[in-house]
């Protein structure tokens, strides 16, 4: 079967508007999280990684008229534009577009929104991006809770394997809205302090907003210096609960196992795990159990939520892009917010930015609905 690669990429976040700037900030141990006390978003203080609408608008007005686009559309377009420009690919009918998001333009449901409610349909978001860039094929929207960003990569690989497209651009994004904050808060899942994935004193999630985009291609001609090959991928359901993870990590265990099997890689062949690590009690514990069942307990592992917060439908793609840069730089990023192990089984959390020769890494994500997705990536020799 044809090989599939991830190549040109962009991260548009509070840490910067391109991957290189973001990675530079992370190398200097900078987090995008801040404390907010904003009643119009949540009636109590919270901690999140936010992008100011004014700053996004100012940036967008350099390329087009911001008044016609929602904040999320502006972020996605700004992010995707950099990737399309860098890859120099002409958008013909062999080029696909995948949008990964959980809630899209959900903020247009707010009474004060100046946009029509029809903008809240995710297919409309797809059309807006398709039309802005002039894609010839219909946008495919993946909306599968917090695994969406990783699943979008799997989906791209699968559509390319079926020879429907030669290249696929993925753009992923979600906003921190009153909608999302109130919902996670109703689950008592939010932390008002910077989150502490896997830590003994973890108390919950921080949310974050970001747009992240990438080129998925089967052509070696379109690879950049941080390109990686997709070796294996899988999604498995826990078949257990719709809002809580399986106690045994069943779906995560199965998805990683299946991805490693397809990749032909054993636990000893994985150099780094970019895990989900939301900093809730149940999620982190479930991951520790699954990684032990997989024999991955000694592999260096981090959660990047301490830099970006949980960016929902974008998180999986965002964290994969960081993983690609990690592998290129042979640098493991610390799992920010972690000091003392707070899960029942041992896992090897990265406590400071550490140089290490990296070749193969595993990305995982888990989400509501009991879904779990895992992909094994390998550095390309380009």
């Amino acid at each position, binding site marked *: 079967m044809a090989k599939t690669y991830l190549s040109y990429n962009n991260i548009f976040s509070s840490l910067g508007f391109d991957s290189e700037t973001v990675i530079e900030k992370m190398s200097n141990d900078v987090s995008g999280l801040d404390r907010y006390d904003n009643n119009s978003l949540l009636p109590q203080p919270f901690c999140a990684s936010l992008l100011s609408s004014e700053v996004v608008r100012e940036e967008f007005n350099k390329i087009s008229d911001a008044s016609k686009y929602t904040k999320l559309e502006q972020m996605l377009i700004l992010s995707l534009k950099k990737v399309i420009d860098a890859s120099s690919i002409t958008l013909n009918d062999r080029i696909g577009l995948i949008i990964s998001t959980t809630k899209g333009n959900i903020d247009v449901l707010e009474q004060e929104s100046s946009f029509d409610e029809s903008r809240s349909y995710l297919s409309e978001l797809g059309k807006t991006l398709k039309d802005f860039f002039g894609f010839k094929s219909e946008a495919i929207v993946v909306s599968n809770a917090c695994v969406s960003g990783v699943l979008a990569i799997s989906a791209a690989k699968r559509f390319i394997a079926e020879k*429907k497209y030669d290249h696929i651009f993925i753009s992923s994004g979600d906003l921190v809205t009153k909608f999302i904050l109130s919902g996670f808060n109703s689950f008592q899942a939010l932390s008002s302090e910077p989150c502490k994935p896997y830590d003994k004193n973890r108390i919950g999630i921080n949310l974050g907003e970001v747009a992240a985009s990438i080129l998925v291609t089967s052509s070696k001609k379109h690879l950049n210096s941080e390109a990686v090959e997709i070796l294996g991928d899988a999604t498995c359901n826990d078949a257990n609960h719709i809002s809580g993870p399986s106690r045994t990590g069943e779906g995560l265990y199965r998805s990683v196992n299946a991805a490693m099997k397809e990749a032909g890689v054993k636990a000893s062949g994985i150099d780094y795990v970019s895990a989900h690590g939301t900093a809730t009690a149940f999620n982190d514990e479930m991951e520790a159990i699954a990684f032990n069942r997989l024999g991955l307990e000694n592999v260096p592992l981090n959660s990047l939520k301490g830099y970006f917060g949980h960016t929902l439908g974008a998180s999986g793609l965002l964290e994969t892009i960081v993983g690609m840069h990690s592998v290129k730089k042979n640098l493991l990023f610390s799992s920010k917010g972690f000091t003392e192990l707070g899960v029942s089984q041992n896992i090897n959390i990265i406590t400071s930015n550490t140089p290490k020769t990296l070749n193969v890494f595993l990305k995982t994500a888990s*989400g509501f609905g009991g879904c779990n997705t895992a992909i094994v990536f390998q550095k390309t020799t380009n």
Partner: protein
Amino acid sequence: MTNKFHIKSYSHIKSQTVSVNGNVIFKGDDADFPNFIKSAYKYLETSYSKFFKMDNLSKLAFLAADVLLKQESLSEEENNIALIFSNKASSLDTDRKHQKSIENQDEYFPSPAVFVYTLPNICLGEISIKHKLYSENSFFIFDRFNAEHLYLYANNLLQNNKAEKVLCGWVDFDENSYEAFLYLVENKGEIVHNTEEINRLYNLL
């Protein structure tokens, strides 16, 4: 290679009617969706108490899947049936309910029981729990029924042995309009698995 897989069975739920393989198995007389789906659930002897906690989209998807999967003599331990679902309105029906509960500061009552259903793929979780499917899940949003992409995705999973069977289709709930069309793809079956046949079955009722 293209015609290797087959459509074994299919279901429709629309216009107060539940059908399997084109044959009506239940017709309700209540235009209101919650009442209709409840009568269908009872008539079809579904017996699954979690059903009543589900939102409209999950009830629709769950029942459309259940009428097909209960014919399959599934294992009580686990089954490798992938779910590839799609729609236009995502979870907007429940999204609007959650938004209403937070719109005014004086009536601010967000509920976790509502919020959890503000994701379209929750219905995949509900079906997976009932039928012990530890399998591939994917929820796509399209402007309209998109047989080609469902076909390609299902084909890829079956071809690469990522699933033994694939349950695919469209489950859309918006305001009081609803429509479900699901079909089961596997090796054996009368109908060839291709885009034309999928579209033909979708438009059958």
